[in-house]
């Protein structure tokens, strides 16, 4: 578990995480991620001009999700964090998706 046994992540916490330690902080990587995010933004704007019909929403959401993954993993540092944070984020996402899907079981079959 995360406070007493040796659960090593890229950030091996010598003191069980009580004192946060920076590991190879880098300006460059973050700027690259930012450039990627700008690129994805311009892609999503351009794509919205093309008539994809019902696929348009899906594409837009996929691009937004990819952008979000970059922000979460790099800017929010989740990629380099202890496993427990990744599990937490997964749980949160799962609950939200599940609730959305179940609500749509009502809507899709009511508004046919």
């Amino acid at each position, binding site marked *: 578990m*995360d*406070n007493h046994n040796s659960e090593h992540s890229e950030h091996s*916490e010598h003191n*069980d*995480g*009580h*004192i*946060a330690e*920076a590991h190879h*902080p*880098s*300006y460059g990587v*973050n*700027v690259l*991620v*930012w450039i990627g*995010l*700008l690129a994805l*933004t311009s892609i*999503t*704007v351009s794509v*919205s*001009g093309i*008539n994809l019909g019902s696929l*348009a*929403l899906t594409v*837009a*959401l996929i*691009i*937004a999700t990819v*952008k*979000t993954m970059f*922000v*979460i993993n*790099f*800017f*929010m*540092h989740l990629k380099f*964090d*202890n496993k*427990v*944070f990744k599990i*937490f*984020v997964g749980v*949160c996402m799962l*609950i*939200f998706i599940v*609730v*959305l899907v179940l*609500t*749509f079981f009502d*809507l*899709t079959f009511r*508004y046919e």
Partner: protein
Amino acid sequence: MSQNLDTTQQEIHEVHIHRDDFGSKMGMWLFLFTEVLLFGGMFILYASYRFIYPNEFVLAASELDMLMGAINTVILLTSSLTVVLGIVALQKNNKKLCLFFMWVTVVCGLLFLVNKYFEWGAKFHHGIYPKGPALQDMSEGEVMYFGLYYVMTGLHGLHIVVGLAFIGFVMWQIKKDVLTSTNFQRLENAGLYWHLVDIIWIFLFPLFYLIH
């Protein structure tokens, strides 16, 4: 088991809580989840009404200025970058550079709010607001679209304000050397909050501005 102790002769006791950056980060992430679910409820409503009124949403979205939305998206993405660069700077013990990046972040946030002010202002001017004159002539789906637009971007804007306050507080602590290259968790936490506000906008932008 009442004790007849003269309490004035005792030392003052307080429970001493050791610093725990990991726990502090965990608390912040958990708080972010509550924000996700808060906006999540709104996104469920959005999804529902877009499903029910697909054509009306397209129609209503034409009232929005896509360029303005895109600019705001770039502003927020940049502000997320500068927050992270600020953290890196502090970790490398460059306090001045850190504060510079934090100032850029704040300016970006304020710019976003200014843009929002003009956007909303333009709509109010045209009578496009809940119970407003323009909405009386619109279809139900369009009314739903604008209801959602105001609540979601309004709530988001409120979170920008809160985020800026948090960042301002943390900047003050950096200036006072409370937060340093060996004590920066609170700055990271402020950054986490800010990134979430950015992520919410990453979804709001295509959902409101890019429906054609």
